[in-house]
């Protein structure tokens, strides 16, 4: 190795280190939110008696803080039904976010179905897909009861058999091999056990 070549390599190496010292923190700054999980948030949405078994009640609560109305989301809440194999003491909160691309679905009482206005997704009473382009059932929110109030908490997704999994974005399949093709994101909460 000549002196000239050694200097060339040394200067290029120093330049690389200096460049990395600027670029890496900037990139880290931009991608950091992917790995940041916010605080678990629970919000009371009504008294225990407000909810019944055979139909949903629409509740609106804050999912993302600090951005006003844009951070609110809608859930449809009912009591657990024995004939559906659910615990009658628990409450079911179904998200209104369509599992196709995230439009807001509406529960149509006469049909007993959830219907999406954007691309025609249809879900049955339990939130399972029965028509249109959605790739999985509607998401759920965790529920609990505190001081005679029903509280809703973090979002989680479900498989076609309604088994809880980590929350996925709309458009992403759940269950089986899809759990690996659409890996759970670090900023989502673990699903409720059982």
């Amino acid at each position, binding site marked *: 190795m000549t002196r000239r070549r050694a200097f060339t390599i040394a200067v290029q190496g120093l330049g690389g280190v200096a460049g990395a010292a600027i670029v890496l923190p900037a990139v880290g700054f931009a991608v950091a939110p992917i790995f*940041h999980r916010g605080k678990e948030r629970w919000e009371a949405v009504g008294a225990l008696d407000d909810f019944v078994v055979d139909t949903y009640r629409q509740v609106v609560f804050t999912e993302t803080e600090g951005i*006003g109305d844009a951070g609110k989301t809608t859930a449809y809440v009912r009591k657990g039904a024995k004939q559906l194999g659910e615990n009658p003491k628990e409450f079911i909160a179904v998200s209104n976010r369509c599992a196709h*691309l*995230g*439009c807001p679905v509406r529960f149509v009482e006469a049909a007993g179905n959830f219907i999406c206005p954007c691309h025609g997704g249809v879900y049955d009473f339990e939130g399972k897909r029965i028509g249109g382009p959605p790739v999985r059932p509607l998401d759920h929110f965790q529920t609990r009861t505190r001081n005679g109030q029903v509280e809703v908490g973090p979002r989680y997704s479900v498989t076609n058999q309604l088994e809880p999994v980590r929350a996925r*974005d709309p458009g*992403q399949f759940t269950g089986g091999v899809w759990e690996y093709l*659409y890996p759970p*994101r670090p900023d989502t909460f673990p699903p409720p056990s059982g």
Partner: protein
Amino acid sequence: MKLDSLIPAPLRKPAKPGQGNGAKGPAPADLKTAPPQRPSDAQRLGGRAKDAPADVLAWVDQRTAASGFLTGMLFRKVPKGTNWFYTLGSATLFAFIVQAVTGVFLAMFYTPSTTQAYASISHINNDVFLGQFVHGMHKWGSSVMVILVFLHMGRTFFFGAYKYPRELNWVIGVVLLILTMTMAFTGYLLPFDQRSFWASVVGININGTGPILGPYLSDFLRAGPELGATTLARFYSIHMLLVPGAIIALIGAHLYLVVKLGTTAPPWLHAEKPKVAVPASPLEAGANGEDGGRP
């Protein structure tokens, strides 16, 4: 030519050799009986004032040698058959410049905050002088630019102008297409009304459907699990700083290659046959006489 006098001297197309007839005309026959007229001070100053713009250009040119480059670029040869379809690229560039200029002025009134974005757009549309017009130019101009990009791409494709040696320029053009779509996507959220909010939700979720990396990509775009305040700031930064810079740089590279490689003739024109027949080999030419052995 009249047009020539409008073009500053350094940029003028050089006259062909042997065309001039001396700078000051023919010399007087007899200096004693007809001495040359001295111009008055007013005439001389007027002449100097008239030359001032050309002098300034010459001053710059002497220090940058830009005229050689500009003459080569502006007076470059274009193939026979060049037609209006060849202006689609320039039209796209013009659309981009309109977007850049109106965008800069919109940024003077826009507030990229989830609580104030919609109000600031309403303010631009309803209160600011010509605000609705400038906003409209930016809004409709974005669609115009996307349409022109595709027409330009179609012209390049159907005229076969992407073939050797212009493949790299096609690749750069495709990157510019992607960047233009990124601009359209990120700009759509900025008014922060119901339509732009839900369209962005859908768009981000489409990005999320890519396997393995998709979920992380949608998280990156939103800066979190849900579309929020940081999403708007992020889209605004991408829309007015990151992507425009990349587009300007790539347009520079795109144009450089266009000038360097020249444009193609339309496919319905075939290359002219050489006027002098070239013998395939000296031996053949000798054997078959003067016509070089060509049929």
